[in-house]
């Protein structure tokens, strides 16, 4: 309220000049960019400006004398509470939000920022409430949208961080793929996720990786099984096109090419959105991730960007594995070379030597005394050496064991151990032997070899059991003993052997764990998931 100017001397202060008020007030009311009104003590509209009348959806005249509840029933509960408070306390209530709908908005929810102030008469009594109301719906929506975006970006960033961390740690491509499928699908609300990897022998061919993600196993069981059998060529169908082009594809119309029969199944499942993303290593496409949803999810720039990152992380895992594969192959090649040289060169040298020593023995004759004795000793030694060289050269060459022969090979291993002093070893095989190929069989055998070798050397065990069990869920190779066990702190020291076992497991997509058995001794478990 303005102070009266000094020197007025008896004139009424303008603000108290009752004759001036109505005009001023009218002017303010009319010009105000906000909603204004006055309630009396019963909550009846005494005056209201055009703006607020518009907000309320009724002409000014229909407000005067009516209560809040009659005009804006949806806001009445909130408003009446505030009214009572102002009237009773005589204190203003500022900066609060009123939310609801009015006739003007036909059910749409709006939000207003309100200030409700007590109106006093000349005696200072509260006789009503002065209201200022501003529609902040749009501003609020903007804020909420911004907050939502921040939340989403943070969540996306978190997901990318998690994917990166996992990519660094993962021991196998399958593990990394599975993790990514799950995180991405959960984050983006996909119902089914899967990955394709190019065949090693024929890079033109996309093979289904044995990993998937789904929100509903039962519902998607048939789709999953079909997907796991879908082989595509570069350029063929949606995933094939992504593979060939290195560009993601995202559609909310069911694509007419997903692979044999998949389209029908997808349609039956109510799938509407399909998206496939490339996994990149440098500039090469080394895999394709595909996702499906029964909700319509429009292509989203943010998702495309994060998928590019996910793709790159996965690409690193795949590259790393390919590199490790090459290293192992190199070292196996080296072994093979050594084995072959032993066989070809050293072996032959020894043959020549054997011939000479035989001749020497003959020349010396049967009764040549110490010289003859010595010659015979040398012949014996040469024979032994030849035997060892033979065994060594065979051992160095990683001859592949076929899948069906794995059991026989493990039996041979068990027999070998059984024959060594103080240790008994038995083999237990259960379930239909299901090992997909020679490479897998070989690695499993080598893992068993390594584990058993460690036991023989370190554990002081008396009983060893090698178990190969197989069912729908997994093929499990277990080597157990009753020795002194491996104290957890020492596990690290097992060093190369354990690392190599882990690595071999990784090569075939299996996991390897070493733990102390509850009843003493150690248990090495190699678990190869999946039906084969």
């Amino acid at each position, binding site marked *: 309220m303005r102070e009266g100017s000094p020197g007025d001397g008896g004139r009424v202060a303008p603000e108290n000049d009752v004759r001036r008020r109505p005009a001023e007030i009218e002017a303010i009311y009319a010009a105000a960019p906000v909603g204004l009104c006055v309630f009396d003590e019963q909550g009846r509209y005494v005056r209201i400006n055009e703006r607020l009348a518009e907000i309320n959806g009724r002409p000014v005249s229909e407000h005067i004398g009516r209560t809040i509840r009659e005009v804006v029933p949806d806001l009445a509960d909130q408003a009446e509470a505030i009214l009572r408070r102002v009237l009773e306390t005589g204190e203003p209530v500022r900066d609060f939000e009123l939310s609801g709908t009015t006739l003007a908005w036909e059910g749409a929810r709006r939000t207003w920022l309100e200030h409700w102030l007590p109106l006093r008469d000349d005696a200072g009594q509260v006789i009503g409430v002065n209201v200022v109301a501003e529609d902040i719906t749009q501003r609020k929506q903007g804020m909420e949208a911004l907050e939502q975006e921040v939340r989403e970006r943070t969540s996306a960033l978190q997901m990318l961080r998690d994917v990166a961390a996992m990519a660094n740690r993962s021991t196998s491509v399958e593990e990394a793929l599975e993790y990514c499928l799950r995180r991405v699908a959960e984050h983006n609300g996909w119902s089914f996720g899967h990955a394709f990897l190019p065949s090693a*022998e024929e890079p033109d061919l996309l093979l289904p990786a044995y990993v998937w993600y789904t929100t509903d196993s039962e519902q998607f069981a048939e789709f999953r099984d079909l997907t796991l059998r879908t082989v595509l060529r570069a350029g063929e169908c949606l995933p094939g096109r992504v593979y060939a082009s290195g560009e993601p594809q995202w559609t909310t119309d069911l694509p007419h090419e997903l692979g044999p029969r998949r389209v029908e199944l997808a349609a039956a499942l109510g799938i509407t959105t399909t998206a496939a993303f490339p996994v990149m290593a440098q500039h090469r496409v080394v895999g394709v991730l595909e996702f499906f949803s029964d909700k319509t999810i429009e292509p989203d720039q943010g998702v495309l960007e994060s998928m590019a990152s996910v793709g790159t992380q996965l690409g690193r895992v795949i590259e790393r594995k390919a590199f490790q594969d090459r290293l192992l192959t190199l070292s196996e090649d080296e072994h*093979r070379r050594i*084995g*072959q040289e032993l*066989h*070809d*060169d050293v*072996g*032959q*040298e020894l*043959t*020549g*030597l*054997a*011939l*000479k020593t*035989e*001749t020497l023995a*003959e*020349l010396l004759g049967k009764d040549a005394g110490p010289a003859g004795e010595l010659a015979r000793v040398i012949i014996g030694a040469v024979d032994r050496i*030849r035997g060892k060289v*033979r065994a060594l*050269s*065979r051992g160095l*060459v990683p*001859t*592949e064991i076929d899948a069906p022969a794995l059991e026989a090979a493990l039996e041979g291993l068990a027999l070998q151990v059984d024959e060594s002093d103080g240790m008994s070893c038995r083999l237990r095989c259960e379930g239909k032997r299901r090992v997909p190929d*020679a490479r897998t069989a070989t690695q499993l055998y080598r893992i068993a070899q390594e584990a058993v070798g460690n036991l023989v050397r370190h554990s002081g065990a008396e009983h060893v059991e090698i178990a190969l069990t197989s069912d729908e869920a997994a093929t499990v190779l277990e080597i157990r003993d009753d020795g002194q066990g491996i104290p957890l702190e020492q596990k690290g020291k097992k060093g190369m052997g354990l690392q190599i076992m882990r690595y071999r497991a990784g090569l075939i997509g299996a996991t390897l764990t070493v733990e102390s058995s509850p009843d003493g001794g150690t248990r090495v478990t190699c678990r190869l998931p999946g039906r084969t």
Partner: protein
Amino acid sequence: MPTRVLIVDDHPAVREGLAVRIGSQADMEVCGEAADVGEALKVLAATRPDVAVVDIKLKTGDGLDLVKRIKARDESVRILVWSVYPDKLYAKRALNAGALGYINKEHTTGRIVEAIRRVRDGKVYLTEEMAEDLLSRAVGGHRRLTDTPVEALSDRELQVYRLIGEGLSSRELAKRLHISPHTVDTHRQRIKEKLNLASAAELTQAATRWVLEGEQGDSS
């Protein structure tokens, strides 16, 4: 007159050892040595041996081939094939090629001299086991089950298979056997079919393993 022996083997230590062995015998002498087919034929012409001891694995060319060619040049030469490869597979082929005996290097350095004498005398030399095996095949042949797949390979295919197992590439194979790469491919294809192998990688692995397991003498 001491028996004149020609030694054909690609490894110098083996030639030397055998030469010492033969040299210590009163009734035989080494008249020449060679490491590959070409050299062998030259020395053959120059020295006219009575007996030739031939390894299957040679620097260039193939021992079985050489046996056939020696026989073609000079019927009178008696040939003993001496190799690290298993009897079961090569004994019959060696005899078919015209040799009189087959002896495996691993177990029989003690018997080499005996083998040379038998062959010199025009008699067949085989281990007892091998002899029994071949006899029973010859007699009850039609009732016997089919040969193991490798036995079903032709001589040439077996050559190719072995060389693959020894690590030769197709190109090196073609050079070694003096055949075209196309022919090598055809052989590889037929080998794969006969041995039921699906890919080049499988072929290499099977061949490598087979060559190394040959060390065992009797193939398992």
